[in-house]
């Protein structure tokens, strides 16, 4: 509410994801690839292997062109993007870690200078001096990773910093070391994968293919252990995201493991066993696997932090936790600096609120679009459910506005789709009931699934008994919205729930703990934060 919201047709967070994934992919290669180059050069010189040395030289030029230009500039791209999308969070990080970034910049500066010198002086520097420059490059690059790793991990696990606000507590937070090992392992994996891009066509081909394979395999061996260590140290609410309830997380985990295993198999087959099979399509597939691995990893890293962008300080929609209460009592129209519409009763105000509160992760349509998510909602239900928004899947920040704001946003959300009109018959009752369930209940519940199953409540109830419970839903729990669907939809819903709850219990029926609820909301409570942080 402090800054203008950059209003795009896509969720603004997607821009960060796009820039970050590409940057992380190349920047980790910049670390591992530097290590790979100098060790390979050292090996070539020790063994007096001219072909291997020639490969190093060629690879160093590719390395410089990719990392100096795309790697470095995309890193600046992250700066630009986060400043545009999450200025509040960026400001918090800058005020906390400006000296860490300054130190990282020193290493970056040395890294860039060393990379240029290393790539340009194959003929002019002595073997010893050239390798010294190579080692300087790698040490500077890894130290740059070391520092940035502290800031990135802080965003999920600020640890003791919350109480002490001590710089070192923030940097050396609970996930610093496991994340550093994991990132180093990823760097080594990518060094191996990218090593194939400049694979010699003739002499030395087999040796390089096997050598790069060893790097990739070494990284893959270390990665699972470091991730296991990392996952053991992330907050409880983050761990709960990984229990298989959320489809996106499930796909990302499977994707990450799948890409890594596929890359491993390709490298074992075409790198280690039959290097002559390592042709351009295989190399391209390996690069795709590497990118997929990074994409999945970054997606999970971002997801398990939800609803925060900086745990306990700033929410994913760039609202400070400390401001939520004030916004809920005062309202957005009296607080926000940059509003497109001033009149809370206007439709434009509701749309403006949508962009302010939801635009970081959602657009009206398309990917993560709200249109399909709110199909079937009326304005009253939408305004009601906004009170409990943080309960949906544990991924949403609390609603930051007063009742007037909720009504305005509720009207906007309800207006995204035409109101439902059904001609319910015996033939379509179940289908419509399922649709109503998805719209009214499915954001927080399943009947027989893992996610807050309702089976226990509605088992052995007739449709009319189920329907009789609806008017009391709002009183059953403070987190439940009032039920206000038209009677025909209520009947269809009751019919569906009763049918589902009467089905035999699935063999694997085991409700999972959800990332919402007390454990989560305790973490969220801004009252626990020291005065200066709020």
């Amino acid at each position, binding site marked *: 509410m*402090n*800054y*203008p*919201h*950059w*209003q*795009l047709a896509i969720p603004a967070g997607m*821009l960060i994801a796009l*820039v970050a994934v590409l940057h992380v992919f190349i920047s980790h290669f910049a670390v591992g690839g530097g290590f790979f180059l100098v060790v390979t050069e050292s090996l070539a010189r020790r063994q007096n292997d001219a072909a291997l040395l020639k490969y190093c030289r060629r690879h160093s030029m590719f390395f410089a*062109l990719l990392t*100096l*230009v*795309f790697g*470095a*500039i995309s890193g*600046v*791209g992250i*700066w*630009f993007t986060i*400043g*545009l999308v999450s*200025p509040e969070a*960026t*400001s*918090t990080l*800058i*005020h*906390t870690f*400006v*000296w*860490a*970034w*300054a*130190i990282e*910049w*020193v*290493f970056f*500066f*040395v890294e*860039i*200078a*060393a990379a*240029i*010198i290393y790539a340009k*002086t194959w003929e*002019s*520097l*002595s073997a010893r*001096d050239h390798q010294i*420059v190579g080692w*300087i490059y790698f040490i500077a690059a890894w130290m740059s990773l070391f520092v940035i790793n502290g800031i990135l991990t802080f965003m999920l696990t600020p640890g003791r910093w919350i109480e002490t606000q001590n*710089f*070192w507590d923030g940097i050396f937070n609970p996930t610093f070391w496991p994340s550093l090992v994991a990132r180093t392992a990823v760097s080594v994996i990518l060094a191996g994968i990218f090593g194939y891009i400049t694979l010699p066509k003739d002499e030395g081909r087999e040796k390089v293919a096997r050598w790069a394979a060893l790097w990739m395999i070494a990284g893959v061996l270390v990665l699972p252990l470091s991730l296991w260590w990392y996952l053991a140290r992330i907050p409880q609410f983050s761990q709960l995201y990984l229990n298989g309830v959320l489809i996106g997380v499930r796909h990302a985990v499977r994707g990450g493991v799948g890409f890594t295993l596929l890359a491993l198999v390709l490298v074992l087959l075409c790198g280690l066993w039959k290097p002559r099979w390592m042709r351009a399509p295989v190399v391209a597939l390996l690069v795709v696997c590497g990118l997929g691995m990074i994409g999945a990893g970054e997606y999970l890293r971002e997801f398990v932090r939800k609803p925060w962008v900086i745990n306990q300080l700033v929410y994913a929609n760039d609202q*400070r936790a*400390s401001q939520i209460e004030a916004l809920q009592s005062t309202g957005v129209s009296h607080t926000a*600096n*940059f509003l*497109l519409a001033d009149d809370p009763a206007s439709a434009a105000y509701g749309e403006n609120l949508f962009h302010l509160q939801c635009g970081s992760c959602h657009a009206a349509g398309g990917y993560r679009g709200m249109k399909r998510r709110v199909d079937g909602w009326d304005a009253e239900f939408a305004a009601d459910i906004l009170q409990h928004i943080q309960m949906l899947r544990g991924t949403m920040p609390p609603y930051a506005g007063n009742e007037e704001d909720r009504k305005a946003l509720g009207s906007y959300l309800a207006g995204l789709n035409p109101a439902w009109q059904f001609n319910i018959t015996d033939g379509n009752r179940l289908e419509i009931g399922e649709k109503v369930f998805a719209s009214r209940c499915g954001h927080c519940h399943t009947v027989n699934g893992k996610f807050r199953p309702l089976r226990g409540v509605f088992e052995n109830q007739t449709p009319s008994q189920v329907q009789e419970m609806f008017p009391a839903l709002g009183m059953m729990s403070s987190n439940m919205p009032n039920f206000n669907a038209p009677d025909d939809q209520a009947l269809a819903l009751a019919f569906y729930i009763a049918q589902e709850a009467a089905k035999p219990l699935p063999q694997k029926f085991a409700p999972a703990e959800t990332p919402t609820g007390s454990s989560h909301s305790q973490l969220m409570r801004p009252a626990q934060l020291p005065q*200066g*942080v709020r």
Partner: protein
Amino acid sequence: MQTIPIPHVDPLPLPGPVWLLTTLLLLVFTLHLAAMNSALGGSIWALWNYLRGRQSEHLYSRRLANDLATVLPTFLAFTVTLGVAALLFVQVLFGNFLYTSSILIGILWLMVIPLVMVAYYGFYYFSFTAQRGKGIAGCVLATSVCVLLGIAFIFVNNMTLMLSPGRWLAMYRAHPNGWNLNSGDHSVIPRYLHIVNGSIALFSAILAHLGMRKMKVDAEYGRWMVQRSALVFATCTGLQFLLGMWLLLAIPREIAMVLLRGPLAGAVFGLALLSVISAMLLILLGSLAEKPMAMVHVGFGMSLVTLFLMVCLRYLLRLAYLKPYLNLGTLAVRPQTGVIVLFLLLFVGGLATVGYMLWLVARSAKSRASAVAPS
């Protein structure tokens, strides 16, 4: 009347004293500008000489274009690297202004990233192909130059817009998607031309300095470099005075008065004028002699001093613009002393490491030169 919306400063205190953050900002921004002027001014020089050098009689032009081709990517690499540091410190001190203006021109601001990549790869392409003197090398370099000129324009828009909070809300309401330019500000065009012309001027001074060094190896080529660059430097500096006057007339009167009458800003302004005039005279007079004189080096040094003074002046003008909304002296400060000391030590260590690598390169060049020299 509607109040001017200014985002609140961050609730966290500044992690270092204002004077230190300011000093570092001024220092790294000066270095960034020196590198940026080398990249932009150098690429304009390279393009001009590349095109001229295609005619057989202009051998030195072709040679200069080839020489510049090898260093342009490095200039751009350090423009970016040093720019990152400047961006870091400006965010701590002026983040609430800079973030807002960046969002208002969000699309163009983000376009800077792919544009820099295009220019950078263009420089590399030119460095690999310039020697051949044919093909599309000239077109690629021209594209890079145009792209850099575009980037400079975006930066000028953002840096002026961050000083004009009164225009923000209307601009945001007009285009909340970031398709804005600071077009209503009359100072944008003169400021942009001042920056571009200044970059050609400064790189000409650098080239004059390099030409003096080149004279030790190749007297004729070196002299040609010195005399030609001195002429361009003097011309651009003369033009810079006119552009500067235009800029002075375009900025609000009360801000211009700070520049002309403010004790500190006025003194810096006066010193900058003195140093640029002395730089121009030293380089021009030094280059006119049959054997250009060492005063060219001094003139080059004075042009760097001018650059630093102009950076200081720009900072003082920014403070004057933001005076109604920001007083840096009132911001809460909680210095992270241990980390600051560590940074300063590493900064010195980093410079020493880069110096050591350059020494390795110089030592090897010297030993190779002595190995091939006739006994």
